[in-house]
Structure formats: structure tokens, C-alpha cells
């Protein structure tokens, strides 16, 4: 079973185009020094994607190191309790390191090694992508530096220590809002300085071309498995897919293999933080407008002068003012719909799933669960929903406890 080159669904229109555009979104907006390295990366990626040896190595790693396929679990008791549609959970939380991020870092690290790079760098918000990068770097013997906003270093202390145990250097970023967007800036600065020996492993479907396409292709294993699994389990396609959207890699990974299945509704769920109306949120697709940041044109949270705004979400992994350009395009084309749920609603879903199914979801994934709760009631008992449970919630227990006034 070759991993990647499933035919690109026709609904995707073969996007992106040769210059990395999804409609008017995407592209390659970087300083000149990075243009040639991005061209070299695109060339290498497209070549290895057609190399059976590369694909079989990737398949082997996904099966034996990551632990794929992940189960598609029927959350029967939770579904019954909600009194609506049958809800299935795609259990990305059961992968090695506990989140979907590893699907992508395994792929990019293999590519880095084939390109002769000896050093990898990454940005991270919640720390899941940083951990997933440090993990594959340790396994392949690559030097690893992870950039993380100082605010995130504080609220995700366990992941910081995990990365250090894995041999990575974690660099706290003190510029700007000291969160994920600033970590991305700093990683780009590192890359431009060490471009000869360094591979930049971007963790989401954003950044300059080819990253949005490449990360999507590595994450599409989620949707390919889920599509096969739901057909086996139910004999039909689901009515709706639900996934949280920060940068949007777990969502695109689930959605993409279903793009041609027009009867399947696609719901991306952003972080509404304290509420869209308060301005304190992380929902560029719901409340932002198009602009250019971090190498691509997409929806952004920005002020009238085009300065990027600080974001607010209880979930560090959603705390990002931009979003992958393919999501911007899916929104504009109407194929996917994007909504936002608040910190409160996400926490409620977090507790609800934990108590009824014995599964502790990541706060990011809890946003998708919250929307699925609402959708399940709307669709009724004949409905069928697949939710991407993109990561496990162990990393978030401190955040939840603090929120409830408990000191651990």
C-alpha cells in the first residue's frame, strides 16, 4: 500500500497550481534568500513522492513507529447521551507522541535525510509539533532546534521538558506576542541563516509553497483511513466531518480525501476564545480578512493598518492569527464551512467526553467535539459524524486544573 499518491480528488482541482496557489490564496511570500531553497524543496518533495523506496519507507514508519492505522472508534455511550447522531472518533490521540503531528514530521524528516540535511528546526505552539519533531530527529540522529513563544513555554512546561529529554534545544521566543506566530518568525530567521544544512519542518498546512501541499499530503493518511474505516463500519459515508482548525493540518488531513464526496459536510472549528464579539479569539476564518503572513496569502487576524493581532484561546495549538491557505480556499469555494466555539464550550466537551468515554481529549480537539455535540442533535439519530480526535489531553491537565482553581 503506497502512502501518498492517491489521485488528488478532482474537487481539489489539482490545487495548488505550480506556484502554490489555491485560488487567490497560498503562494510564496518570502525574502529572496529563501526562494531557491523552497524551489529545491519542492523539486525534492515531488521527486521522492514518486519514489517507491521513499513511499515504502514512509509506510513502514507509519505502521511500526507511529502506530497506524489508528482506530475509528464509535463513541457509543457519548452518542447515546447526546441523543442524536452516531459519532465516530478518529483516534489520532493514539499515535506515538499523542497527536496527529507525527504523521507529518516522520515524512518531512525522511525527506530531510534524503536531501542530506543534518539539522532540523521547527516552531511549536502547544508543543505537540515540537515533540513530534524532536522525536523523529532523535530517531534519525538529526540535530534539532525548536522555537517556542515564551508564553507557550510557560503554559506547556511538560512538553518543553519532553523535547529536552529527546535531545532538542528549545529556544524561547521573546519577540512580539511571544506565542506561535513569533516562534514561526524566529524559525524562518534561523532557516534563512542556516539554509545550507538545515531543513525547516513546518508543523501545519501554512507557510510558503510547498509546505501547505506537502504537509497536507503527509496528513491525508488520516482521511484515507477514516474513509475506508467508516465504509467498513457503517457501509456508507458520514454526513459530516468535524475537525478543529488552528493552522489546519489535522482538518485538511481528514477533509481532503472526502472533497469529492459532495454529500459529506465538512466543518472546521476555530477557537472563539472568550467569544468572537470580545475580539479575544483565534478565529481568522470566522472573523478575519485576507492578507499575507508567513509566506502565504490567507485569512488573518489583523487591524486596519495590516498589523497582525494577538490571538486568544485556551488551547495553545489554536492560538495562531492565520490559517492554512487551502482552508481559506475551501471557505471561499463553499466546500467547507468554518465555525468557532468558545473556551467554555470546548472545556464542557472536554469533560463530557472524558467522563462518558474514558478518553481525555486535547483542548484543541475539544473544540471539534463541542461542535459535534451541537451537530449530533441537529442531525438526529440517523446522522453519522466523524470527529478528528487530533490529540490526547494529558498535556492540558495543568491548564484545565488552573482554570478550575486547582493547584497540582
Amino acid at each position, binding site marked *: 500500500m503506497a502512502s501518498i499518491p492517491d489521485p488528488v480528488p478532482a474537487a481539489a482541482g489539482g490545487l495548488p497550481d505550480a*506556484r502554490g496557489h489555491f485560488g487567490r490564496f497560498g*503562494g*510564496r*511570500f*518570502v*525574502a*529572496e*534568500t*529563501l*526562494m*531557491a*531553497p523552497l524551489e529545491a524543496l519542492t523539486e525534492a518533495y515531488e521527486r521522492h513522492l514518486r519514489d517507491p523506496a521513499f513511499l515504502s519507507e514512509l509506510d513502514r514508519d507509519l505502521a511500526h513507529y507511529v502506530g497506524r492505522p489508528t482506530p475509528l472508534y464509535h463513541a457509543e455511550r457519548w452518542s447515546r447521551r447526546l441523543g442524536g447522531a452516531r459519532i465516530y472518533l478518529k483516534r489520532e490521540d493514539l499515535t506515538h507522541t499523542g497527536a496527529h503531528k507525527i504523521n507529518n514530521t516522520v515524512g518531512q524528516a525522511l525527506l530531510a535525510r534524503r536531501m542530506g540535511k543534518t539539522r532540523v528546526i521547527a516552531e511549536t505552539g502547544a508543543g505537540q509539533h515540537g515533540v513530534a519533531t524532536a522525536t523523529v530527529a532523535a530517531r534519525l540522529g538529526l540535530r534539532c532546534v525548536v522555537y517556542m513563544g515564551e508564553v507557550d513555554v510557560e503554559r506547556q512546561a511538560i512538553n518543553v521538558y519532553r523535547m529536552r529529554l529527546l535531545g532538542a534545544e528549545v529556544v524561547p521566543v521573546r*519577540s*512580539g506576542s511571544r506565542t506561535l*506566530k*513569533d516562534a514561526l*518568525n524566529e524559525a*524562518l*530567521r534561523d532557516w*534563512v*541563516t*542556516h*539554509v*545550507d544544512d538545515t531543513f525547516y519542518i513546518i508543523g501545519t498546512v501554512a507557510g510558503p509553497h510547498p509546505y501547505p501541499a506537502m504537509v497536507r499530503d503527509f496528513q491525508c493518511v488520516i482521511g484515507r483511513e477514516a474513509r475506508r474505516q467508516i465504509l467498513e463500519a457503517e457501509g456508507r459515508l458520514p454526513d459530516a466531518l468535524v475537525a478543529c482548525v488552528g493552522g489546519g493540518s489535522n482538518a485538511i488531513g481528514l477533509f481532503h480525501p472526502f472533497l469529492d464526496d459532495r454529500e459529506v459536510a465538512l466543518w472546521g472549528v476555530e477557537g472563539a476564545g472568550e467569544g468572537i464579539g470580545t475580539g479575544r479569539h483565534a478565529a481568522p476564518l470566522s472573523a478575519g480578512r485576507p*492578507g*499575507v*503572513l*508567513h*509566506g502565504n496569502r490567507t485569512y*488573518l487576524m*489583523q487591524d*486596519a*493598518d*495590516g*498589523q*497582525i493581532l494577538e490571538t486568544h484561546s485556551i488551547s495553545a495549538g489554536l492560538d495562531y492569527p492565520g490559517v492554512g491557505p487551502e482552508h481559506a480556499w475551501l471557505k471561499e469555494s463553499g466546500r467547507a464551512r468554518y465555525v468557532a466555539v468558545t473556551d467554555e464550550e470546548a472545556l464542557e466537551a472536554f469533560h463530557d467526553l472524558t467522563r462518558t468515554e474514558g478518553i481525555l481529549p486535547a483542548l484543541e480537539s475539544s473544540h471539534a467535539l463541542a461542535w459535534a455535540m451541537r451537530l449530533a442533535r441537529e442531525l438526529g439519530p440517523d446522522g453519522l459524524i466523524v470527529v478528528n480526535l487530533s490529540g490526547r489531553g494529558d498535556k492540558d491537565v495543568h491548564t484545565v486544573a488552573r482554570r478550575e482553581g486547582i493547584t497540582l
Partner: protein
Amino acid sequence: MNRIDRRFETLRAAGRRALVPYLTAGDPDPALTVPLLHAVVEAGADLIELGVPFSDPMADGPVIQAACERALGRGMSLRRTLELVARFREDDAATPVVLMGYLNPIEAMGCEAFAAAAAEAGVDGVLTVDMPPEEGEALGAALRARGLHPVYLLAPTTPSDRIRRICDAAGGFVYYVSLKGVTGSDALDTEAVARRVAAIRRQTTLPIGVGFGIRDGASAARVACFADAVIVGSALVRRVAEAGPQRAVAAARALVAELRAAMDGACVQGEARAG
């Protein structure tokens, strides 16, 4: 005729190299920007590069990042940057001003509206760091329609055929980034830069500026031997920041004068490019 073209023509006739200081608009305070600009011109600047502050200056090192934060913290914006240029123009009709910044604030204003406002304010060229020519058609056309030059970067990693394409899209001059890194980096290898500049010169008749990593008279003098323009950013921004608001203008004047003196004494005529 665009002020940039006129200025390079005059310099070429005189066998001189352009000194181009960079300052971030609104740093350390919006009230100081116009006095700073006049001071660097009096001290020997031939062109001015004026940075438009951006919240996420990805290609800049810590010195210019901090300058952007200071300026934004004092309410600076693209619109107010243009107001400062207009005020500078009231007393200086000759010195070319090139804006250097990132694309998003320009797109937020709209390419056409920005080009019109920039021309009105007296801007002569626009260098948009994160906009390669492949993505620059709309802004480039809007700028050219107003007589402004789109200025583009060339890098150590830029392949030969791409240099030609970038130079074809550029106006005024091209800006060679002397090293792989962000603004204010160390380790300028002057000989390697000289070879690259010679290679670029085979592809274009545009003047070639060199920047990133030039920090004092000695490095400016070495670069002046083979480049048409010497661009000094982080070193000047740092000097201004260290001096504090009271002494910022004097500090900027002193550094620019030092650079000017070093460049003018650098090369005997025969060494420099004939033009």
C-alpha cells in the same frame, strides 16, 4: 524622472558611491523621524531607506525587530509613515526615499491606494521584503503607473537565470543581500560579495546596492569599492537606540559622517567601476 535615477546618474558622473542609511519610521519616536532624516542627509546620505514598521518582521534581526516594536508602540502605521515622508519633503525635494517593509500593511491599504498615497507623499521606490517578483505584478504595476520604482532583493542563493528575471522586474536599483541571514548579521565576506556583484553586473545595467552586515566605516569602505550603493541599517538603528531620544539625532549624524568619510577615501578612481 524618478529621484532615484537622477541621483544615481549624478553620482555616477562624479565617480561616487551612494551611501544609503536605513531608519525605521517612528523609532525611537515619531517626532524624531524627520529630524533624523535631515541629519543623515546633511552628514552625507545620498538615498534614504525608511522602514515601515510591521508586527512580524520575519527577515529582520533583533535590532530592527525592536525598532518596529518601539515604533508601533508609539502609534506608527503605514499611513503615518507616509505623512512623515511628506513632512521630510517640505524641506528636501532632492533626496530619494525608498520605503522598506512587508506586504501586508500595503495590501491592507490596497495596492492602488498605497501607490497613489506614496507618490503624493514623495516616495520614490518601494522594497517589499516578502514579495518576490512572482507575486509582485499588481503592486509593481500600481507603483510604475505613479512613477515609483519597485525595488527587489537579490540573495546569495539566487540562481543566475533568476537574477535576470528579478532585474527585469526591478526599477531604480537592485539590493544585493550580502549574506545568508537576517538584517544585522555578522560575518560579511567582502570578497565573495564582490564576485557576486560582478556576476549580477553582467545581467543588468541597474545600479547595485549592497546591504546586510555593513556596520562601520571599514566594511562600508570595502563594499564601496565594488557596489554602487552601500546600505547601512541595523548599525545605525542600534546607534540611535543606544543614544536615547535626546542624543539620537547627533548619534545618527556622527555614524553617517564616519561612513561617508570612510567610503570617500576608500577607492582610487581606477579601482571603482567606470560606470
